[in-house]
């Protein structure tokens, strides 16, 4: 995964832009922001309907000056060209050349943007720019991650500006997007980046490093180590430099030192940089070929596995978990295929906590469909809202942990370790170390999988290659070298001894020829020996030491003292001690060793190796190496003096051994004592240290207690403060709310007469704004007339006066302005409060009341009638001028007096007093009460009294207004007039006493009518009067009159005194006069009228009979005339000569017309004559029949008939049919140019239905008016057939049902015929 070659003709960035729904708009906006020449190539990838011809290129070429081209296979991307993906294709880029392939037919969603951007990342590396614009779904999210991971730059449209935000949103969600902006800004930003030069050429590693200030660079690394605990110094500097460059560009920083400053001040940027550095591409089943190959390896390794053995996997650098889950799935599948139950333990580790968090959630976006087969998707995933969640069966086998493979100890006993695309970011030395630690982590026979661009380097000693192409390796069964540098993490010992076992020699590097030669020499000529450390642990063995050493146990650190044959031990210990002390080689010859019955003498030699670690070379020199004589000169001398016997020899041997043992014992004792001394001293020291610690501890405890108590205090104080704060907050809230809720404008002014606070109402009233707080009150344009605020305030503050006055604001509203001192809780004055109470309504009401009062007074004083106002005791409060004048009294002697006592009230009588009381107390006014009284000065007068209570408000006593009118004269006039009317009336009038029914008066005309004298009827009972035939009826009249007051009788037969019978109408009315009820009976002679009516009726009937008979009887001869004249013409036409033919024609035509007229007349008279049988009939169904009957005409004229919902009426159905048919027929017949449009509507009006038939026909000249409804009036000349009898029939039908018919029309526009039908037909018609 090295840097890819860029396209051939010089490097320029290629911008891949993906969009879907709403993309066109976004593209246009993007190009509107671009200022060519840009020096970049653009490839537009959209989701297109496969079958749909796209006009995107055409539209875009209008929006930009850049050439817009439909992408074709093999096109090389040129700068300042725009390439558009044609429909039904997929596009990728390789070596700067566009590759088109037909879109794969698949049920899975199509992700062309991801595909292109991934190839772009692969091809262009850090020159790639990915842009995601508006669109639905999550296509592109994977793509921007790919671009970002290769060091490219990524953009997405600000989802808020996108018509369909889900695509940019998904891209932004990945965390791999550098810029989130509106499209035009994106375009500008890209151009800026390009011009800044970064994208055009990436500095090479060396340059970069050289240009970097080393100090800044390491400062950044240490900042990262501090904040995130990851040491990036182990990473490839080029990677880091590239990413740093990008971050700097994003912040538009020129120098690294600026960036360091940014990092130091903005921890968030550290997070971003960290994320940038760690960004990596991952997906499910990445590099599927690898997984295929891996499956083979896996099935082989599973073959030999027992069911139930757990299989352990470690996925190092698992990123967001896709890899981990992929391997878990692959393993699960492989285990199933092998038919074994293999428990799985999968460890996923990564340095990024964020990634681990995501991995743990196990939720992946929709686009996992791309990389996961439908089968796996179904089995191992669960659909959730935001995408897919890994199934529980897989999830619970996986454990995720943060782990830095460069620093933390490896996991162990793994069957499989995958570490893909981790090493590429790391320096080679750390790579090697990681490989070693991975080797350690694997079980023997375990598998290692690396990324496609990674190798095991020169560690073929640790791993055997299984599949070079897919980077699958097998752990070789060699001991692991755990060469960790734990120093930084500080957990492990500083040094771990290196263990080299004989086996390792073969495997050891075969490079060093000199070393090899030395080894050969050593094997051939050197005595067998071994190297031990100070603890006598065997580090290295060479030569055949088997004779001297016990066979090595399975012990990691074999100890020489345990390995050495027992007989060697004493000598060995002595020699080692000696060598350690003297730092010089020590040797002892002739040490006997027995092994398997053979006794060998050997010279033991211990040579301290010249190093700080105090290693020793222990050699076993065989007997052939040195002569016994040479080795033991002393023994020879001893033997010489002692005489050389065997016993001597043995003795000498024993002595020597004893001496040796003594020496050894002494030394041991010395050592022991020294050690004891040392221990004692150490103990002392420890004890004293302990004491010191104890005292320190005590001090600390005291300090801690103090701290605790002060902490306690602080907490208390804090609580109190918190409480106070809360109270303050509450009261402040209360105050704010009170001020807000108070609709009263209030200002608070400080001692300095500056505005401190005001209510919202004040804000409105005085047009204040927040900026007015702190302003001197004098500067506030309060707009109140005549208001010296400053002076009032001073008075309030200095003299504690509460001042108030009325003032008007600009609009003339009245306010009561209060100025009060502002008192604090402890009664200090700290300013003043001005409040404005709106009393506008009050003031205005007062004004209104005043006006009303003046008005009322004026009326009272102007009125001509005497008026008097009485109080509750009926004392006179006021009286008008007219009153005083009328009663000739003075105001002084009247006012305050009881009405009954006053001179003007002499006419009072108890009944009137009661009425006045009732009016006053129960609010029962009385009207037009007439009182007659003999007044001393005035004589007899008739007074008309009206009284009405003046209701007192709010428990104030009521008063009474009494109006007095002198009607004496008017009464006399009225009586006179009445009398004249009574006497001259042409009705006979009787006045009866309602109670008794006695005749009180009769007028002269009554006598004239009945020939009875007035005296003959006066005083008689009405019922007993002679002229009235029926006493019973007369009584009833009186009764009914007293009941309903005005009964009337149409025709009553009476007989006059001269025996003549009369028919009269009687109307009776009752009235009251002076508490007595009277009945006035008017008797009108209607005899003549009745007679006339009867005659008219008979004539009408005769006429009808005549018309029917005439038309009916006429019909027959006419038929004969018509029939035979036509027959004559038919049989003889042309035989009789031209004149005769013509005359015959006249006869035929005239006879025909006459026959039609007779028929019409007959129809008309039938309507007039026939019985009507009103039944309930639905107008709609009758209309349907009418339309059916007229269908020929309707079809011929293409008439359109519409109608409202029509009611059910009581009519004769035949007649209704005729009515409707005639009206519709009429409308069709008298149509205009256009096809007739006829509408039948209905509405309710009182007790009638009003039907209307509206047409768009010729219309009727209003001058014909009612004539159209008369028989044989034809208005349209001769061009239309018919005699106009139709409307006459209609009128007849309507009238026979108690309705009326009329027409409203405008010539040339159409007519509307209206007819009414009674809802409840009257009887007798």
């Amino acid at each position, binding site marked *: 995964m090295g840097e890819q070659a860029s396209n051939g003709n010089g490097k320029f960035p290629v911008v891949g832009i993906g969009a879907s729904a709403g993309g066109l708009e976004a593209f246009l906006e993007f190009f509107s922001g671009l200022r060519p020449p840009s020096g970049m190539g653009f490839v537009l990838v959209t989701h297109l309907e496969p079958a749909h011809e796209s006009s995107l290129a055409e539209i875009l070429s209008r929006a930009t000056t850049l050439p817009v081209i439909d992408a074709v296979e093999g096109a090389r991307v040129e700068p300042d060209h725009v390439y558009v993906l044609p429909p039904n294709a997929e596009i990728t880029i390789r070596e700067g050349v566009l590759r088109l392939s037909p879109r794969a037919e698949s049920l899975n969603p199509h992700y062309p943007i991801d595909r292109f951007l991934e190839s772009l990342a692969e091809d262009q590396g850090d020159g790639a720019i990915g842009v995601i614009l508006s669109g639905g779904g999550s296509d592109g999210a994977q793509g921007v991650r790919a671009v970002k991971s290769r060091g490219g730059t990524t953009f997405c449209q600000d989802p808020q500006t996108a018509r369909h935000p889900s695509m940019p949103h998904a891209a932004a969600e990945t965390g791999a997007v550098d810029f989130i902006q509106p499209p035009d800004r994106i375009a500008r930003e890209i151009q800026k980046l390009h011009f800044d030069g970064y994208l055009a050429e990436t500095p090479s590693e060396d340059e970069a490093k050289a240009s970097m200030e080393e100090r800044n660079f390491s400062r950044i690394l240490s900042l990262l180590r501090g904040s995130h605990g990851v040491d990036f110094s182990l990473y490839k500097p080029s990677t880091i430099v590239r990413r740093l460059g990008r971050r700097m560009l994003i912040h538009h920083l020129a120098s690294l030192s600026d960036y360091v400053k940014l990092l130091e001040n903005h921890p968030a940027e550290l997070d971003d940089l960290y994320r940038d550095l760690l960004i990596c591409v991952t997906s499910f089943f990445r590099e599927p070929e690898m997984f295929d190959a891996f499956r083979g390896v896996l099935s082989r390794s599973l073959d030999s596995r027992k069911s139930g053995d757990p299989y352990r996997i470690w996925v190092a650098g698992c990123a967001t978990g896709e890899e981990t889950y992929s391997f878990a799935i692959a393993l699960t599948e492989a285990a199933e295929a092998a038919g074994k139950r293999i428990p799985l333990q999968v460890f996923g580790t990564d340095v990024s906590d964020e990634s681990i968090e995501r991995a743990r959630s196990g939720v992946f976006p929709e686009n996992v469909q791309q990389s996961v087969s439908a089968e796996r998707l179904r089995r191992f995933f669960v659909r959730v809202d935001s995408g897919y969640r890994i199934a529980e069966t897989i999830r619970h086998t996986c454990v995720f942990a943060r782990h830095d493979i460069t620093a933390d100890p490896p996991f162990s006993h793994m069957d499989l370790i995958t570490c893909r695309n981790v090493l590429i970011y790391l320096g080679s030395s750390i790579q090697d170390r990681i490989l070693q630690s991975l080797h350690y982590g694997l079980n023997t026979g375990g598998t290692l999988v690396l990324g496609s661009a990674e190798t095991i380097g020169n560690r073929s000693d640790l791993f055997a290659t299984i599949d070079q192409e897919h980077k699958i390796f097998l752990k070789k069964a060699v001991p692991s070298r755990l060469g960790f540098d734990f120093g930084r993490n500080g957990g492990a010992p500083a040094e771990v001894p290196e263990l080299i076992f004989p086996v390792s020699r073969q495997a050891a590097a075969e490079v060093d020829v000199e070393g090899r030669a030395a080894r050969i020499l050593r094997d051939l000529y050197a005595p067998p020996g071994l190297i031990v450390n100070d603890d006598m642990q065997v580090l290295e063995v060479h030569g055949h030491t088997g004779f001297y050493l016990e066979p090595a146990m399975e012990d990691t650190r074999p100890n020489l003292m345990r390995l050495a044959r027992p007989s060697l031990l004493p000598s060995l210990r002595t020699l080692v001690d000696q060598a350690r002390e003297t730092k010089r080689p020590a040797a002892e010859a002739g040490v006997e060793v027995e092994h398997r019955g053979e006794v060998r003498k050997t010279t033991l030699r211990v040579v301290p190796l010249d190093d700080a670690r105090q290693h020793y070379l222990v050699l076993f020199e065989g007997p052939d190496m040195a002569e016994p004589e040479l080795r033991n000169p002393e023994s020879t001398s001893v033997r010489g003096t002692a005489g050389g016997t065997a016993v001597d020899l043995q003795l000498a041997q024993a002595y020597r051994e004893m001496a040796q043992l003594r020496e050894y014992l002494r030394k041991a004792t010395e050592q022991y004592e020294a050690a004891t001394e040392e221990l004692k001293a150490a103990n002392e020291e420890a004890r004293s240290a302990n004491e010191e610690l104890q005292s320190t501890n005590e001090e600390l405890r005291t300090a801690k207690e103090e701290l605790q108590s002060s902490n306690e205090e602080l907490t208390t104080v804090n609580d109190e403060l918190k409480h106070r704060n809360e109270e303050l907050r509450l009261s402040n809230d209360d105050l704010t709310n009170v001020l807000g809720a108070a609709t009263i404008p209030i200002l608070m002014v400080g001692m300095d007469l500056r505005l401190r606070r005001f209510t919202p109402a004040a804000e409105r009233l005085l047009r204040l704004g927040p900026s007015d707080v702190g302003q001197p009150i004098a500067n506030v344009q309060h707009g109140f007339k005549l208001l010296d605020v400053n002076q009032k305030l001073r008075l309030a503050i200095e003299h504690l006066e509460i001042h108030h006055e009325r003032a008007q604001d600009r609009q003339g509203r009245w306010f009561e302005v209060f100025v009060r001192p502002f008192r604090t809780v402890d009664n200090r004055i700290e300013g003043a409060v001005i409040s404005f109470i709106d009393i506008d309504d009050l003031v205005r009401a007062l004004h209104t009341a005043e006006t009303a009062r003046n008005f009322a007074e004026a009326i009272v004083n102007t009125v001509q009638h005497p008026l008097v106002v009485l109080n509750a005791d009926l004392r006179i409060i006021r009286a008008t001028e007219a009153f005083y004048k009328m009663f000739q009294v003075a105001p002084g002697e009247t006012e305050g007096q009881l009405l009954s006592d006053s001179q003007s009230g002499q006419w009072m009588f108890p009944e009137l007093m009661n009425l006045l009381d009732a009016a006053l107390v129960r609010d029962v006014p009385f009207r037009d009460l007439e009182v007659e009284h003999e007044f001393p000065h005035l004589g007899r007068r008739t007074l008309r009294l009206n009284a009405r209570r003046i209701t007192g408000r709010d428990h104030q006593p009521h008063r009474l207004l009494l109006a007095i009118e002198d009607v004496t004269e008017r009464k006399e006039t009225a009586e006179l007039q009445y009398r004249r009317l009574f006497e001259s009336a042409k009705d006979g009038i009787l006045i009866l006493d309602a109670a008794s029914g006695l005749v009180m008066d009769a007028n002269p005309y009554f006598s004239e009518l009945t020939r009875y004298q007035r005296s003959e009827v006066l005083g008689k009972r009405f019922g007993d009067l002679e002229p009235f035939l029926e006493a019973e009826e007369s009584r009833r009249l009186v009764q009914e009159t007293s009941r309903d007051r005005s009964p009337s009788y149409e025709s009553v037969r009476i007989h006059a005194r001269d025996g003549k019978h009369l028919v009269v109408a009687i109307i009776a009315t009752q009235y009251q006069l002076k508490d007595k009820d009277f009945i006035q009976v008017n008797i009108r002679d209607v005899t003549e009228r009745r007679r006339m009516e009867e005659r008219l009726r008979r004539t009408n009937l005769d006429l009808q009979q005549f018309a029917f008979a005439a038309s*009916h009887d006429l019909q027959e001869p006419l038929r*004969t005339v*018509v*029939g*035979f004249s036509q*027959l004559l*013409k038919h049989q003889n036409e042309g035989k009789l000569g031209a004149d005769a033919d013509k005359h015959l024609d006249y006869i035929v035509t005239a006879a*025909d017309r006459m026959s039609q007229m007779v028929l019409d007349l007959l129809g008309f008279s039938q309507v007039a004559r026939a019985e009507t049988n009103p039944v309930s009939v639905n107008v709609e169904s009758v209309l349907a029949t009418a339309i059916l009957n007229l269908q020929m005409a309707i079809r011929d004229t293409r008439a359109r008939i519409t109608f409202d919902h029509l009611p059910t009426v009581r009519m004769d159905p035949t007649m209704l049919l005729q009515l409707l048919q005639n009206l519709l027929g009429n409308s069709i017949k008298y149509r205009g140019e256009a096809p007739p449009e006829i509408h039948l509507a209905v509405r309710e009006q009182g007790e009638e239905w009003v039907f209307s038939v509206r047409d768009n026909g010729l219309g009727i000249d209003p001058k014909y008016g009612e004539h159209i409804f008369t028989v044989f009036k034809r208005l349209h000349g001769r061009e239309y057939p018919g005699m106009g009898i139709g409307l006459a029939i209609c009128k007849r039908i309507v009238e026979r049902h108690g309705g009326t018919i009329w027409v409203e029309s405008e010539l040339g526009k159409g007519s509307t015929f209206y007819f009414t039908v009674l809802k409840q037909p009257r009887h007798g018609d």
Partner: protein
Amino acid sequence: MTGMGKAIREEPFRVVLVDDNPADAEIFRIALAQEDANIEVTHFIAGNEILDYFGVGDRTTCECKHCDLVLLDLNLPAISGFEILQRMRNEARFQSMPIVIMSGSSDPGEIARCARLGATTYIQKPSRLTEIFAVGHQIVQMLRARG
């Protein structure tokens, strides 16, 4: 207009026409003859003539004068068309005889009454010649339909 390809009938259609107006009777006779030459029209002026002709009400006669169709006016002196219709329909032998009412009246009540009394159909007497011929055609159609 005879037979339309069928063999010419030997027997003429026999039609009894009752109308007090000889002119009306004459013109309908012409109209029928115009339509089919082989029709024999018997014309009566008054109601009693047809009753006598068929022996209506005579219990001793049960044979029936051969007649294919009766054309009956309503407005007749003495015995009205309604009565003739009613009395004929009262007897079983006239049940299937077509009795066509031909009247100048267009009174719906009268038309309804004829239907109630068992008239085969009701034709309002036309006055125009073309219409008279059309009625003739209609009646001949009716006769032919019955065979």
